[in-house]
């Protein structure tokens, strides 16, 4: 039975007004500008771009302001906006070997070509609240030291260094003309190949991937990882417009990359060697890329003849639950009116209860 429920219109309109007031907060406090969000909440902007799967700092900043800092809501807003834009095509693959590196560390080698460049990171801070930031006069313009020389123009990948000895699997493009899976245009299919898995993980929820990555470290997936290399920096984006016939650089994006190196005992086809897990994200999302690399490696169980025993290795479990826009939508749809459903459940439980009581009575007699 369908029962039309009306009468909420005015309440909804007024709810919009209340949320607008809440978002604004105390009018005596100056309103937040998008430039402030973009410049001073950069890591929030980066997460929204990565999981919203759209590189546009201004739009991400707007989404964060509109969502009152609720990043999952902001990601939803960005994803929704994206559907209004035409797609001009796909870019050439970005080349992270040519990255203008701002941070590059390896936990596998101390001395390595190109060195360890710490760059911007909270890793080496004491994690004590800094009350200087609370001072009324602010922090002004912090000064940064400048080295005489820039970072090396081309920094070899740690995985390529290991490769010289043949101790790590190689990542080669088997067929560069092959169609690339695209979740924005086609549904997920299983078994899912690496291209589909990586796209899913790249826009997947950081918290979900972090927990799954953590589970592999605690024994639910055993892949003994080392952070072979972590990079942050800018890469050029090249695109070949149809009407031009040759590629041109159309801009530059910031990306974070993690190459995780994992033990592998070998299989019938492969000798013992290190295997790899890969993480890549827009902006500065280092934790996300590390978690992504752990989960990427765990999801390669099938390919590497490993038994699938744990959640992080189960591609249906991981890929179907990683998207926070879908997850949030399905969990929160429970708030929508289910009045009729609930009435029928109520009737059912009443009749079950009656039968239960009758049976109890009969048993007692």
């Amino acid at each position, binding site marked *: 039975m369908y029962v039309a429920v009306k009468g909420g219109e005015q309440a909804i309109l007024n709810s919009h007004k209340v949320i607008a007031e809440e978002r604004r907060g105390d009018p005596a406090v100056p309103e937040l500008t998008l430039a402030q969000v973009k410049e001073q909440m950069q890591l929030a902007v980066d997460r929204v771009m990565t999981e919203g799967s759209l590189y546009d700092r201004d739009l991400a900043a707007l989404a964060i302001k509109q969502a009152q800092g609720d990043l999952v809501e902001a990601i939803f807003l960005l994803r929704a906006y994206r559907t209004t*834009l035409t797609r001009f095509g796909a870019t050439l693959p970005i080349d992270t070997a040519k990255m203008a590196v701002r941070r590059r560390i390896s936990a596998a080698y101390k001395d390595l070509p190109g060195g360890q*460049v710490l760059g911007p990171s909270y890793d080496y801070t004491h994690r004590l609240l800094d009350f200087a930031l609370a001072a009324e006069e602010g922090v002004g313009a912090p000064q940064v030291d400048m080295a005489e020389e820039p970072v090396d123009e081309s920094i070899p990948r740690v995985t390529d260094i290991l490769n010289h000895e043949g101790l790590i699997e190689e990542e080669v493009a088997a067929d560069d003309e092959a169609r690339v899976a695209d979740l924005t245009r086609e549904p997920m299919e299983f078994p899912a190949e690496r291209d589909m898995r990586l796209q899913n993980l790249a826009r997947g929820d950081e918290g979900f991937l972090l927990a799954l990555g953590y589970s592999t470290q605690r024994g639910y997936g055993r892949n003994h990882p080392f952070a072979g290399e972590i990079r942050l920096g800018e890469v050029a984006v090249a695109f070949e417009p149809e009407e031009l016939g040759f590629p041109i650089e159309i801009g530059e994006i910031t990306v974070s990359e993690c190459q995780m190196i994992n033990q592998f005992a070998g299989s019938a086809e492969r000798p013992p060697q290190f295997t790899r897990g890969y993480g890549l994200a827009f902006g500065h999302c280092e934790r996300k890329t590390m978690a992504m690399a752990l989960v990427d490696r765990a999801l390669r169980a099938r390919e590497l003849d490993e038994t699938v025993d744990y959640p992080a290795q189960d591609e249906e479990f991981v890929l179907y639950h990683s998207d926070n826009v879908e997850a949030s939508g399905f969990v929160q749809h429970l708030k929508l009116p289910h009045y009729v459903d609930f009435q029928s459940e109520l009737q059912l439980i009443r009749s079950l209860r009656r039968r239960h009581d009758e049976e109890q009575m009969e048993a007692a007699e």
Partner: protein
Amino acid sequence: MTMRSENGAGVGAPAEGAGLESLPGSGSPPGGVPAEAVQAERQRWMSVLAKAQLSELEQAWDQVEERPAFQWLRPPEIGMVMVRARSGGTGGQFNLGQMTVTRCALRVDSGATGLGYVQGRSKRHAELAAIFDALLQDGGRRAVLDEEVIRPLAAAYDRRRDERSRKANSTKVNFFTLVRGEND
């Protein structure tokens, strides 16, 4: 300052019969210069124009003498491209996520067509990139524009990149080993 067509022809609307298929090679290569060399040059300046900051482009445009009238072949349009990457950096391709891009195409009164494809949502940026692209295809103007516009824009970009990189390099670790030597 205006860069609108003086005669008003076709401004803001695609010109009739001016199909975009006419774009490739529309800039006639100057005599004796091989087509690949012109293409490489065009790739270079289009890249510089796309990566320049809008304020720098506006400034460069302000300096330009003899600004041409033009008509739109395709007025600025905001869209996106899917950014691809490779697994492990070198392996098979995958779709990382999308990026906003603004594109446009126009024809200047000398007949050259200019194309703008730039990251972000600035229609003005795409427009200026396209008009410079058209002007740079004019063999008679290229040398001057390259000297006065493209080189300074490229230098400004290099400066920003160098500054960022030298800041990063100040955080490079210089490992040293403490030697607890035997007394000899």
